[in-house]
């Protein structure tokens, strides 16, 4: 359904844009129909940049994003509108997605003006009711309220309902539950899983490995804009191959076992390194003779449906 082909994004930073920041480099992966793909990475790994490129909020520097056989960077006018009918995003902070001066249901009205101008009132109200029920909200409780009168979980579900009004096929969910409380976040997560079973594809962007494991079949792990490991979630979590993934797995706080007290690597990360493996300067097993200091390794298949970008693995 959605295909990313070697996409890259270079930001111009510094005074007069004199420096380049490689936020995303040569990332390729696919999202199939009715599949949840998790995009996992720490802050600054480029995961949100990928989400924004898919939503065409920012342009790609190189590479193609293909949605149902159409290259989205060339879409314009009616075709672009059609694209947004199929693809929508929900972002991290539910409070900043709303204008606090207007009532929260204004987001529905804007959809109506843009996409359904001819719909009669009664039909539209029924549609809203269906969408709200689908996300587990009681229309009586949430309509006609200002954003500050609703909780974070309610607002976030409101935004998902807004996306559902359009009968979308693909949802970009960028850290949508990291601002919610423990008791409500699981409900929003279950809601996503339910929508998935109805055929919606989701790109689930997160830094939380346990959430990714809970909901997705496929996972992509990013480090400094490069894919370090990708494939079936089970394979990655049960058998992490890349040293970065292993470090992540070891530092996740778990409830069933305590941290192993080891030396935590605190070398500060620099924005991006070019001309060597992205993980080279923090890697405990880097080996110059394999070329770790010269090139970014390509993804190779470690086992069926499990790819890893590491020279040491190729050697083994």
């Amino acid at each position, binding site marked *: 359904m959605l295909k990313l082909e070697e996409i890259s994004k270079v930001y111009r930073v510094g005074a007069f844009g004199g420096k380049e920041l490689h936020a995303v480099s040569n990332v390729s992966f696919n999202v199939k129909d009715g599949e949840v793909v998790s995009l996992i990475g*720490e*802050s600054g790994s480029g995961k949100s940049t990928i989400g924004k490129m898919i939503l065409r909020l920012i342009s790609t520097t190189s590479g193609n994003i293909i949605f149902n056989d159409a290259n989205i960077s060339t879409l314009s006018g009616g075709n672009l509108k059609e694209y947004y009918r199929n693809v929508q995003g929900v972002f991290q902070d539910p409070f900043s997605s709303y204008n606090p001066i207007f009532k929260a249901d204004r987001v529905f009205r804007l959809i109506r003006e843009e996409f359904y101008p001819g719909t009669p009132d009664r039909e539209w109200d029924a549609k809203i009711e269906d969408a709200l029920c689908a996300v587990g909200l009681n229309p009586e409780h949430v309509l006609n309220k200002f954003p500050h009168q609703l*909780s974070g979980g309610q607002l976030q579900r409101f935004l998902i309902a807004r996306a559902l009004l359009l009968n979308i096929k693909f949802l970009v969910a960028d850290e949508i539950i990291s601002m919610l*409380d*423990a*008791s*409500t*976040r*699981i*409900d929003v*997560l*279950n809601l996503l*899983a339910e929508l998935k079973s109805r055929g919606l594809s989701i790109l689930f962007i997160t*830094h939380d*490995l*346990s*959430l990714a*494991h*809970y*909901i997705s079949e496929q996972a992509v792990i990013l480090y400094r804009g490069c894919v370090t490991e990708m494939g079936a979630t089970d394979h990655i*979590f049960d058998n992490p191959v890349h040293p970065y993934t292993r*470090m*992540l*797995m070891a*530092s*996740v*706080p*778990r*409830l*069933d076992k*305590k*941290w192993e*007290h080891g030396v*935590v*690597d*605190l070398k*500060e*990360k620099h924005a991006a390194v070019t001309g060597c493996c992205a993980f080279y300067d923090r890697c405990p097993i880097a080996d110059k003779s394999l070329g770790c200091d010269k090139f970014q390794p390509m993804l190779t298949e470690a086992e069926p449906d499990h790819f890893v970008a590491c020279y040491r693995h190729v050697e083994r």
Partner: protein
Amino acid sequence: MSLQVDNLRVYYQTLRGDVKALDGATFTLADGEIMGLAGESGCGKTTLGHSLIRLALPMRFIEGRVTLDGEELPIWDTEKMNDFRFKKISIIPQYAMNAMNPTRKIGRMTAELLGSRKVDFKDILPELKRRLDLVKLSHDVLDMYPIELSGGMKQRMVMVLSTLLDPSLLIADEITSALDVSSQKAVAEMLVEFRNRKCCNSAIVITHDISILYQIADSIMVMYAGQLAEKASTETIIHAPRHPYTKLLISSLPEVGVKYTERRLTGIPGNPPLLLDPPVGCRFRERCPIAFEKCIEIPPFVEIEPGHFIACWKEAGTHAQA
């Protein structure tokens, strides 16, 4: 017994009336204990932490007694607390990223900070350098501005600053929530290391992330809607909680290893009550699956087993009646 808090009530003054953010907290903290304070947002955990160090408007002290190492803290008087703040009781703030003065080099800022407590920077410099080594920061940071440090480095610098005068009690307010998983682990482990090296005697770690507490805390106290729900050792809270709220909270946490298709987790239905006009009796009553008639009275926070306190009529049973 390092810290003893008796029936502490702190309200927020608003135009619509008092918000009862902390309504009767009674607990003790042992020497060398790291206590985790967990709960949803708005349950009063930050209010509790801040009232122990700086109780300023709109916070209003209602009643209660706080004793630290046998000395009563005048927490209702901001001026009098100056004698204790930073020396006996210290805090690592929630937004440690912004806690340092951006216009001063870190070394000079530290000197000014110590000067305000009549401590000479030169006397403490060797110790400061030892502590910087402990958190793996280079000594050069003292000649840098805060903007030159990354988020994780600033967090560690603030940790060193907060504990420089070896406070008896350290309050760590959401210190790991803005960090990446790898630096999260490092910062959390450093906190334990600080305690082990007696840089602080005991600590209260405020966080909404219970899995972090499981890694570092000796005991966990769970708050709900401004009141204490349960306090026990970490193992007990995680593996054998008694309060229905704690049970639901723990069971709603997704862990690595749980999949939607295999085991579906559920949240807690309903919302926490507004503290402007909290419900009478047990505040968890409306969301509680085991509530009964007795719950319209406020349950006492009683000890049901040594070190295990809960506030629940049903679970505490005969302990509560006595």
